[in-house]
């Protein structure tokens, strides 16, 4: 996968977003050990310090934790990940409705459009 970054937004925040999606979609499962900072940095093609900052942010949100000397792990708390997924889904839905509102379509119409789209 190629990761693209928008230079107008702090890079660590964009890495953080990619990481959240990884957690929500189960690329890294609850309780699973994460690759090293260096490996992540290589994958995302970002500075290891930037990667460290993104991981520190995830850790402060309790989504991952550090086991001393042993590396970083995804939280074992499945509810936290569910909550993250829920929040993410709401954000996506809101931005859809906002976009539709701009072209003069209300919620009911917007939902009709959604239903008309094949996945």
């Amino acid at each position: 996968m190629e990761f693209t970054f928008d230079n107008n937004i702090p890079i660590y925040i964009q890495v953080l977003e990619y990481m959240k999606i990884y957690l929500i979609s189960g690329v890294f499962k609850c309780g699973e050990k994460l690759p090293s900072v260096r490996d992540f940095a290589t994958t995302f093609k970002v500075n290891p310090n930037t990667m460290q900052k993104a991981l520190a942010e995830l850790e402060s949100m309790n989504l991952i934790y550090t086991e001393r000397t042993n590396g970083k792990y995804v939280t074992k708390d499945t509810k936290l990940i569910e909550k993250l997924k829920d929040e993410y889904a709401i954000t996506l839905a809101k931005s859809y409705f906002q976009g539709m509102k701009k072209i003069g379509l209300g919620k009911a119409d917007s939902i009709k459009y959604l239903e008309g789209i094949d996945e």
Partner: protein
Amino acid sequence: MSNMKLLEVKKLDKYFDNKKILKDINFSVSKGKIVGLLGKNGAGKSTLIKLINDLLTPTNGEIFVNGNKIGVETKKIISYLPERTYLNKQMKVSEVINYFEDFYDNFDSEKAKRLLKDLDLDINQKLTKMSKGMQEKVQLVLVMSRNADLYVLDEPLGGVDPATRDYILDTILSNFNENASVIISTHLISDIEKILDEVIFIDKGQIVLQSDADKLRNKENASIDEIFRRMFKC
């Protein structure tokens, strides 16, 4: 002296004849950082880099690397990519590798060969037979194959195509260790800014801004490139 500071530049002035090229330059670089030295053509970037590499003598002020004043000792731990190549172009790449191995204790020739192979460069080829971009790649591989404490890269992206630029950035990222730092001078900011920890803007021989890259983006709501353009609009 704090041992966290890998490079310290203090009250540095440089005059050529009576013309001030650098004025009161003060900054430091911590271990494990990638720092962008950003400025327009003629801002004084290359002069500053040459001073750090002991190729010019300061008019006033001092430079320390790992606590040592610039000199023979610091040259051993600084790996420098000059703006223009100093290699004898009649040499084959393999000969240049031998030359580096003789010259630098900390040169890892196996690593150099591996990186050259990754880049599809033939070590039996003479430099004169290579394109400018290929020569730049060879030079960068040589510089990044030294186990140095400080890498100083003067315009590493100048003559190469965008695809190769990405490869060069990857090479820089994956070949410096957490105890080393990298200073990259460039005016091609948008290509390089995503890998920078810190930025230093230099204009007319003076440092006009020094900041953490992401903090600056956050504060100004813009890319480093955009902030630079606004600040130095002609």
